[in-house]
């Protein structure tokens, strides 16, 4: 294979200059002429019937332009699992009852945000309080209050996966262990809150919505369903987005109600959440309750695994069922599991709903898997590294009827981290220890619960007479660097420079559908679509060059370094820029347009490819106060061919940061459905002083399905972080954990318990 000119080279972010100079425009920064400010009135009760709403006083307030309630809306139901109409369970505003504290019941548009806020106080809602249910297993009971009339037992979705003869395999195991875990949720805590600006065109009846979203297409569909409009009459534009982390996939009340208010007033309307709304009324990581059983041979070989999962759904569906599905899938990663049984249920309850948060499914599954594996290794007298090496997935691995693994550099990653631990961490004190974990992550989802008829991703390219290129893609750069990746892929495939390309991203009116930024799908899916579009253009140019060279078809031509030439005789060729001119002139002036798309085929049910890696953390525990310090992190990472090493490193660093937060300090306690810590003062995220340095090693593989062999890098490293810390604490102190958020008190108690246990004569 020839050397790449652009792929794999550290490349500055194409949005960089705009982002460091305050010129990058976020929805948050936008103001349109004549714009109104919208606010939402939210339910103070977790479960209540709406008896009446009196908006007359609010409407009288000077400066108020519109007040709407459920009855003023078209009542369209929407959700992300569109294939199943019964799971489209959201409406713009509550129609007859509220299902969680914060469920919106009315929306106001006024000339200032302050007046809109004051108007909320003047709306009089009479509620009949209904019994509420908050715990997933309580919600399932026959006598539990029902959230949705047509859904019995509050069961949102169930899932069962089974392969191999699980019971027989457990019988044949030398060692079987069962462990149970409970996880809390995690806020996405994006620095840009959810906000949307909607502008209704009175002349055409069309709607334009700018929104802080991870998926313009999903928002377009959600709005179409909610407003009962045609998709094509709704244009969604994603400006720069101040972080998503999984919480901006759904159509949220800000965008739907901004649209409704704009349609009612004929003026642009903007709704911006405040930070408290962000913490209490936006999507968070799914809290879970799970039981894991694994059977081993004496030598550590995994024989069977059972995984039982109950997820804390909250009031609506969103991507919650996907979290359920993926957790059950990731419970088998990244190991060879010959027989497996998984049962999961997601139930509704009267809390803000849970959904995807960065590395969803993987983080939760891996915590249990990696902790259980270390406990088993300890009991079997095998090292944590050895038990992982013995069971590691290898290239071509297949889970029957579920998924296929293509490239896999897991063993190399394990070797690399092991080597670096031995070289680097030679001076561990008695309060220090090492936690070792492995991980895998998907490169986009194959499932199509959104029910799109389109390819999963598309791209268009227009080549101008001077050779400059306009690239149109709907990929959502929410900070991860997708825009840069796409420009690099386009430049490499066309053999031109990054400076030749102008990117037009994420506008549903001008770009072909892409499903958005979730499950680390953009590099694989949009990258492939961009590459396909560029190939399409390249073929047109090569045709012209071939004609000019007069060579027959057995001679291959290449486009590289702004030239198009004979592959075997590189000196015979032309400037790319000249060929572009010729191509346009020779073809009656027709513009050069390339289109491309990507949809995975024959890759199983989950993902077209899988990234792998392994991680070690060096941890210091203060046994007296339970404080945990993560001193150093080593990661070896197989993301195939890294497109932009700078971006890859950024993603791994950020993933570890989120994993540290979930593992050590982030939690969202609730009381009767009320989130108790809705501010950055009370919700602790990892700050710079708590952040360890990360030594990152890229293990190069070539993924045949990925653009230039690339795989994901955006989420995989979240999952292994927390269990690595828990494992390190286990090795230092013997303390065992059955939950995340290892705050000092929890660690202190676990250490005391371990000490008590050690005093007893019987061996654990």
């Amino acid at each position: 294979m020839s050397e790449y000119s652009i792929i794999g080279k550290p490349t500055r972010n194409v949005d960089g200059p705009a982002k460091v100079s305050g010129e990058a425009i976020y929805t948050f920064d936008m103001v349109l002429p004549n714009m109104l400010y919208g606010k939402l009135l939210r339910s103070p009760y977790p479960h209540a019937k709406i008896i009446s709403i009196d908006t007359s006083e609010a409407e009288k307030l000077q400066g108020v332009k519109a007040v709407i309630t459920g009855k003023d809306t078209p009542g369209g139901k929407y959700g992300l699992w569109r294939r199943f109409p019964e799971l489209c369970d959201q409406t713009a505003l509550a129609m007859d009852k509220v299902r969680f504290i914060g469920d919106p019941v009315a929306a106001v548009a006024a000339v200032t945000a302050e007046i809109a806020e004051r108007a909320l106080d003047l709306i009089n809602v009479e509620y009949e309080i209904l019994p509420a249910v908050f715990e997933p297993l309580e919600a399932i009971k026959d006598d539990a209050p029902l959230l949705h009339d047509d859904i019995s037992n509050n069961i949102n979705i169930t899932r069962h996966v089974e392969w191999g003869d699980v019971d027989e395999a457990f019988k044949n195991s030398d060692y079987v262990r069962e462990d149970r875990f409970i996880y809390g949720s995690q806020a996405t805590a994006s620095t840009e809150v959810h906000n949307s600006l909607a502008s209704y065109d009175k002349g055409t009846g069309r709607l334009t919505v700018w929104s802080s979203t991870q998926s313009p297409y999903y928002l377009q569909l959600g709005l179409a369903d909610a407003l009962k409009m045609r998709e094509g009459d709704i244009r969604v534009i994603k400006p720069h987005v101040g972080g998503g982390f999984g919480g901006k996939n759904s159509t949220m009340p800000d965008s739907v109600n901004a649209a409704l208010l704009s349609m009612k007033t004929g003026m642009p309307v903007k709704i911006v959440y405040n930070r408290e709304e962000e913490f209490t009324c936006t999507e968070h990581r799914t809290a879970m309750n799970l039981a894991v059983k694994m059977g081993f041979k004496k030598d550590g070989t995994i024989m069977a695994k059972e995984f039982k999962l109950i997820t804390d759904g909250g009031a609506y569906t969103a991507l919650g069922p996907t979290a359920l599905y993926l957790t059950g899938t990731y419970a088998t990663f990244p190991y060879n599991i010959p027989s497996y049984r998984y049962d999961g249920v997601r139930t509704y309850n009267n809390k803000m709903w849970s959904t995807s948060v960065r590395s969803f499914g993987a983080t939760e599954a891996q915590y249990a898997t990696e902790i259980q594996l270390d406990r088993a290794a300890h009991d079997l007298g095998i090292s944590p590294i050895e038990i992982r090496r013995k069971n590691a997935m290898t290239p071509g691995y297949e889970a029957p009827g579920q998924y296929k693994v293509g490239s896999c550099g897991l063993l190399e990653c394990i070797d690399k981290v092991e080597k670096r631990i031995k070289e680097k961490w030679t001076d561990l004190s008695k309060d220090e220890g090492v936690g070792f974990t492995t991980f895998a992550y998907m490169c986009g989802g194959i499932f199509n619960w959104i029910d799109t008829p389109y390819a999963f991703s598309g791209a268009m390219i227009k080549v101008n007479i001077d050779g400059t290129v306009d690239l149109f893609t709907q990929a959502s750069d929410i900070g991860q660097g997708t825009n840069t990746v796409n420009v690099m892929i386009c430049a490499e495939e066309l053999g031109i420079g990054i400076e030749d390309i102008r990117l037009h991203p994420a506008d549903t009116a001008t770009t072909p559908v892409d499903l958005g930024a979730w499950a680390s799908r953009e590099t694989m899916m949009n990258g492939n679509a961009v590459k396909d579009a560029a190939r399409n253009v390249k073929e047109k140019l090569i045709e012209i060059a071939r004609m000019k060279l007069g060579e027959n078809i057995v001679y291959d031509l290449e486009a590289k370094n702004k030239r198009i030439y004979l592959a075997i005789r590189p000196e015979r060729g032309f400037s790319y820029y000249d060929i572009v001119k010729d191509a346009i002139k020779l073809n009656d002036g027709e513009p050069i347009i390339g289109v491309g798309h990507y949809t995975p085929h024959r890759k199983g049910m989950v993902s077209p490819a899988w990234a792998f890696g392994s991680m070690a953390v060096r941890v210091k525990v203060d046994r007296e106060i339970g404080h945990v310090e993560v001193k150093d992190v080593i990661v070896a990472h197989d993301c195939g061919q890294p497109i932009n090493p700078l971006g890859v490193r950024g993603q791994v660093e950020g993933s570890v940061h989120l994993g540290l937060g979930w593992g050590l300090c982030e939690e969202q306690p609730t009381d009767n459905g009320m989130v108790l810590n809705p501010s950055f003062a009370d919700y602790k995220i990892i700050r710079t002083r708590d952040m360890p340095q990360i030594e990152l090693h890229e293990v190069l593989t070539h993924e045949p399905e990925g653009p230039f062999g690339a795989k994901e890098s955006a989420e995989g490293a979240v999952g292994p972080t927390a269990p690595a810390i828990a494992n390190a604490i286990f090795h230092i102190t013997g303390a065992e954990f059955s939950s995340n958020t290892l705050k000092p008190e929890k660690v202190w108690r676990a250490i005391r318990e371990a000490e008590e246990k050690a005093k007893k004569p019987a061996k654990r």
Partner: protein
Amino acid sequence: MKKQLKFIVNGNPYDIWIEPRLLLVQVLRDELRLTGTHRGCDSGTCCVCTVNIDGKAVKSCSVLALQANGKEVLTIEGMANGPKLHPVQEAFVDNWAFQCGFCTSGQIMASNALLKENPNPTREEVQHAMDGHLCRCTGYNMINEAIRDAAGRLQAQKSEEKAK
């Protein structure tokens, strides 16, 4: 009742009348339309809105605009020298020290103030100075490296100027 606010923002003199209750961030964003200064919380706990007042890093949500009366305010929009990015901005781009970019203005303004006070900070000194700045994307390390890279660039720039 509105009160007079006379101050300098990014080198430009302003003489405006504002409601005294307004925070500096509100005046910068809503009155002057300098939207490069973002706002991440409502409680003074994220530092996203940091600007410089008379060379010091200040959370613009935690001071009234009138407190800037007679002072010099520098926001992200005033960092570049015409079309040329400031060395701190360059270092942030070269080191991939931002992702979503929403907290970046505040990070850069705090870095600018830090490097004036301490032209050659260690990793720990940067961590200490920047501890209040929440970033959900980067994990901070690449920001820390960018700031120390910027320190080198600023010193190089200084010695170049001296040489002239």
